[in-house]
């Protein structure tokens, strides 16, 4: 432990009395004052600008078709690895019987990964995918074709809103910071396709 103490002591001696600037206020967010519809539109625009493709379907029953058609359009086999999220399992995948799915974490050699996101951030077009019993962040790093299913009401204004939402969810489960949180903005190693599910809430447009 003497290395630790040596470093910490030197750091403390060095920074003692260092001048501190006045705090700068954070700039106003581009999403301030937007309605839910505005947020959805902005999320789509920013995600596409970052290199993702975005598609909207009316309800979860349409999701299997969207996934299968996307794979056909790319000329891929109808095979995918899906995160073991209960919500994803509850999607009526048998609507497209030729779609062959396996649930669980990403393995080397997987070509297509399907996952759900905790939040979509309108300001930056970012998807927030924390680890948890129901998520597999590896599905967004390893396979070359990545598909994320995002319910419309999970779209928030800023990254800070998403952090707050995550903290609330973790607290409700009696947990702290998830062991990994992935932020995905546009295409990374592979292609990213976002499927937005649901109708905008009529009561809160």
């Amino acid at each position, binding site marked *: 432990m003497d290395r630790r103490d040596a470093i910490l002591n030197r750091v403390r001696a060095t920074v003692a009395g260092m001048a501190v600037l006045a705090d700068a206020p954070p700039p106003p967010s581009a999403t301030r004052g937007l309605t839910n519809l505005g947020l959805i539109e902005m999320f789509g625009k920013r995600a596409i600008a970052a290199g993702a493709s975005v598609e909207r379907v009316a309800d979860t029953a349409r999701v299997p078709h969207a996934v299968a058609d996307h794979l056909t359009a790319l000329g891929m086999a109808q095979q995918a690895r899906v995160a073991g999220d209960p919500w994803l399992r509850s999607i009526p995948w048998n609507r497209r019987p030729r779609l062959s799915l396996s649930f669980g974490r990403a393995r080397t050699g997987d070509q297509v990964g399907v996952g759900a996101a905790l939040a979509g951030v309108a300001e930056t077009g970012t998807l927030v995918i924390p*680890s948890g019993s129901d998520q597999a962040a590896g599905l967004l790093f390893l396979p070359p074709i990545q598909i994320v299913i995002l319910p419309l009401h999970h779209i928030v204004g800023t990254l800070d809103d998403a952090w707050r939402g995550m903290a609330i969810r973790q607290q409700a489960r009696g947990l702290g910071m998830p062991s990994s949180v992935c932020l995905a903005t546009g*295409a990374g190693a592979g292609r990213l396709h976002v499927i937005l599910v649901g109708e905008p809430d009529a009561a809160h447009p």
Partner: protein
Amino acid sequence: MERLRAMGCTVTVPAQGCCGRTLLERGDRRGAAGMAHGMIGAFAGCGPVAVPNRACAAMVRDQYPVLLADDAAWGGRARDLAARCRDLTDLLIRAGDPRTDALSRQVIATRDRTLAHLDRHLRMVEDRLRDSGGQVHWATSAGDAVTIIRQLCLNHGIGPAILDGSPLLMEIGLEEALAGAGMTGSGADSPPLIGISGAGFLVAETGSAVIIPDAGPDAGLDSGAADTLFAPCHIVVAAIDRVVPTLSDASALLRLWSEGGGLPPRVLFATGPRGAGDADGPDIFHLVLLDNGRTDLLAASGAPPPRLAQRAGWVWRLLSRHPSLYRHVTSFVSRVHGYGGSFQARWRDADHG
């Protein structure tokens, strides 16, 4: 320049040579002094001098007065030029361009605030990560870090290690050291069992290491970088001077991370090994906190004007030690800025000269 003019500054570009940093690094003090004379002459009678390249700024500001200290005629002028030398970015921000700089100002204020209590933030990272089941190691030097990591690989003994292309790992020469000991694997035949990555920065309130895999030139992450993140044993190396207090500060910093604005394509906040019910993530998580001269730089940058050396210095030390990395970075920078030649050539091309 247009931005400076728009803010009401008068901008001139005197005919000038090179700052002579490369000569000094090769040990040619006399040649470097000659270059310094040229530069001091060129900028005599100017107001603040804006230096676009941070490394050149550090040279003029920190090295000229030392280089010419014994020179009765030039010593005073060198100190005078050093005092007028400003980093272009700082000048733009100080001059108050409202367009993009609210966010940069916020990030700079956060960084200064964090550095002023760096020891407290480092201790918080350590505590939070321990609570999440991660293990924390402290390394004073590059050799120290290599020894620690080699020992960790031996302790776990569960197979070959795979490294990402992070500058931190290059700084400590980890790849050569592990390859020499026969401890790296290509990962082609068997999945890697130990992943080693470098963190972009740390978040104190959660004890997270923020890993930003480098997007390659062909718009793809190098696949090794992704594989390191999901190996059963994950070792992360982080610099002690790169800490932000909260997740919210991390968001602001990430938004400034890429040149073109926008977040990097993939970012991973790694906070310890996977939880009991997690589908994904490493079984074992180690964080190696690396000093390697950063405290010295912090001490050196305490004198006014602060911060410049802190920012330019460590990048520069790292680059000058690794010629291949230096070439890589300079070619990248010239690609990003869309010019191949010198600053003067660009000025001529723009039809001003």
